[in-house]
């Protein structure tokens, strides 16, 4: 790791916040060749690191990145055009040899921020000709701007596997002619499941960052909610699209209360509910109502229903845990998953006591998808501690600490470990 510098910090922040916009603008310029676009963006990032380090961070870093990125594309195009008459044409904007004016840059940025532009990028990344796992990875990389390591952790695979997956997906988009376009409205529903899955993973990454110190990477949540709202506009009668939007809104309403002033994680029961966003809760509840009118609830709508039970409780002690536990059981039938069973076990522990939860956690030991995750031992340690089984709780806590990558969760587990080791203090 290079030592952090103000230039590197500013670059990381700008790339993270504006990755989708920059890629949409450059992707449009290359007519959807995301390899060319991302190469240009990476070269631009290297140039920025050097120049911003020497001369300071420019006033408008996004404009700087777009101007240099566009010039890199133009240089490359000119070089390859000299050698190869078949070099793919860039769009007119880039064929002009002179440096673009500030006004032209602003126009490119405006174009790239209109919903359709980013939806175009999203639809290419979520194309069904790509494996679902490749779509998830590519969208997080290209639209979300996450690093390969972060995506690997989020998807529970090794980083080299993830790097390979992303490279293959980008090659397939280029070589198989995956269209860089919003699909016709008739084909959109078929694309939706993949797009929704991807959006929710982006939301989750923003909500509970898998690495580093930023527990709440808010702009990703905002972006996922925004893209979710665009999808809901396009498919207003798709219950699951509405369910997903509702779920994200209801969770996002709590986002600012999930961390304390020091960046520590605040559990749901300890959050200051006065600070939950009423606006988002109301919007989420309304959207949930609309989703439930569309037919039998799917997995996203059921999760939104669970989130709505929390949102309804003015105090943590008012939470109807029995309703939540039952909703988890229904959810596990609609969409069986070890994570759902884990959360359901915690809900049953709240409804009926820790022994009930612990009994439901035990069968999850054999789930391979949980083997690298800290979630199972973390949940177990909390229940064991409640039952005053301190030695076992400490062991589970240590196991969770060996696997956790996120600093706030690590601090929470470390505090719990102290409680297990020194119960009286």
């Amino acid at each position, binding site marked *: 790791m290079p030592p952090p510098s103000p230039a590197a910090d500013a670059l990381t922040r700008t790339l993270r916040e504006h990755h989708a916009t920059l890629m949409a603008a450059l992707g449009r310029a290359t007519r959807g060749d995301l390899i060319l676009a991302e190469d240009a963006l990476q070269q631009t990032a290297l140039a920025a690191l050097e120049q911003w380090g020497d001369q300071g961070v420019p006033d408008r870093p996004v404009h700087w990145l777009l101007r240099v990125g566009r010039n890199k594309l133009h240089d490359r195009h000119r070089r390859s055009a000299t050698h190869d008459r*078949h070099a793919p044409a860039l769009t007119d904007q880039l064929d002009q040899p002179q440096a673009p004016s500030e006004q032209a840059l602003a126009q490119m940025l405006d174009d790239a921020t209109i919903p359709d532009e980013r939806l175009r990028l999203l639809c290419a990344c979520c194309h069904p000709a790509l494996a679902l796992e490749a779509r998830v990875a590519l969208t997080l990389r290209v639209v979300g701007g996450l690093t390969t390591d972060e995506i690997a952790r989020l998807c529970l695979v090794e980083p080299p596997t993830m790097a390979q997956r992303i490279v293959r997906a980008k090659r397939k988009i280029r070589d198989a002619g995956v*269209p860089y*376009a919003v699909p016709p409205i008739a084909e959109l529903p078929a694309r939706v499941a993949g797009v929704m899955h991807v959006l929710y993973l982006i939301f989750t990454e923003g909500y509970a960052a898998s690495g580093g110190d930023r527990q709440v990477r808010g702009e990703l949540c905002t972006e996922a909610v925004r893209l979710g709202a665009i999808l809901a506009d396009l498919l207003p009668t798709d219950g699951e699209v509405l369910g997903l939007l509702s779920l994200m809104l209801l969770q996002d309403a709590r986002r600012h209360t999930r961390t304390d002033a020091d960046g520590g994680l605040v559990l749901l029961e300890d959050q200051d509910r006065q600070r939950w966003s009423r606006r988002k809760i109301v919007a989420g509840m309304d959207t949930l109502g609309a989703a439930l009118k569309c037919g039998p609830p799917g997995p996203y709508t059921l999760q939104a229903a669970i989130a709505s039970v929390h949102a309804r409780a003015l105090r943590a002690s008012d939470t109807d845990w029995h309703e939540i536990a039952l909703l988890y059981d229904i959810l596990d039938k609609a969409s069986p998953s070890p994570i759902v069973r884990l959360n359901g076990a915690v809900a049953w522990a709240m409804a009926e006591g820790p022994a009930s939860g612990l009994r439901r956690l035990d069968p999850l030991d054999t789930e391979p998808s949980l083997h690298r995750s800290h979630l199972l031992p973390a949940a177990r340690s909390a229940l064991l501690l409640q039952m005053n089984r301190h030695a076992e709780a400490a062991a589970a806590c240590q196991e969770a600490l060996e696997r956790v990558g996120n600093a706030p969760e690590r601090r929470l587990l470390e505090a719990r470990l102290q409680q297990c080791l020194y119960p009286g203090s």
Partner: protein
Amino acid sequence: MQYLLLIYENEAKREARVGEEQAAYMAGYHQFTKDIIAAGAFRAGDALHPTSTATSVRVRDGETLVTDGPFAETREQLGGYYLVEAEDLDQAIDIARRIPTASCGTIEVRPIMDYAKAT
């Protein structure tokens, strides 16, 4: 772009299809072929003899290995192909899904390598 649409189907089922059923199936192919010729997407297309007539060729360490049969032993075999012109993968998939065998076999869509474009 050009795409090769590889038509995979179960040969045993193909041979079991006779009489009126076979006639109706082939009528579907005639209609499809006429349609994509009219749409300007057709470049070439043929049916293949069954895999019992296939020979696989491999060269390993300079030695040519010729074996009887198709490359992969699978439950479905390559039965024919179309070479089509399409704007992008979506258009190629849209053509492929209209091939009658798509409903009982598999159509593999493969982009044709354009050496002029490859860098």
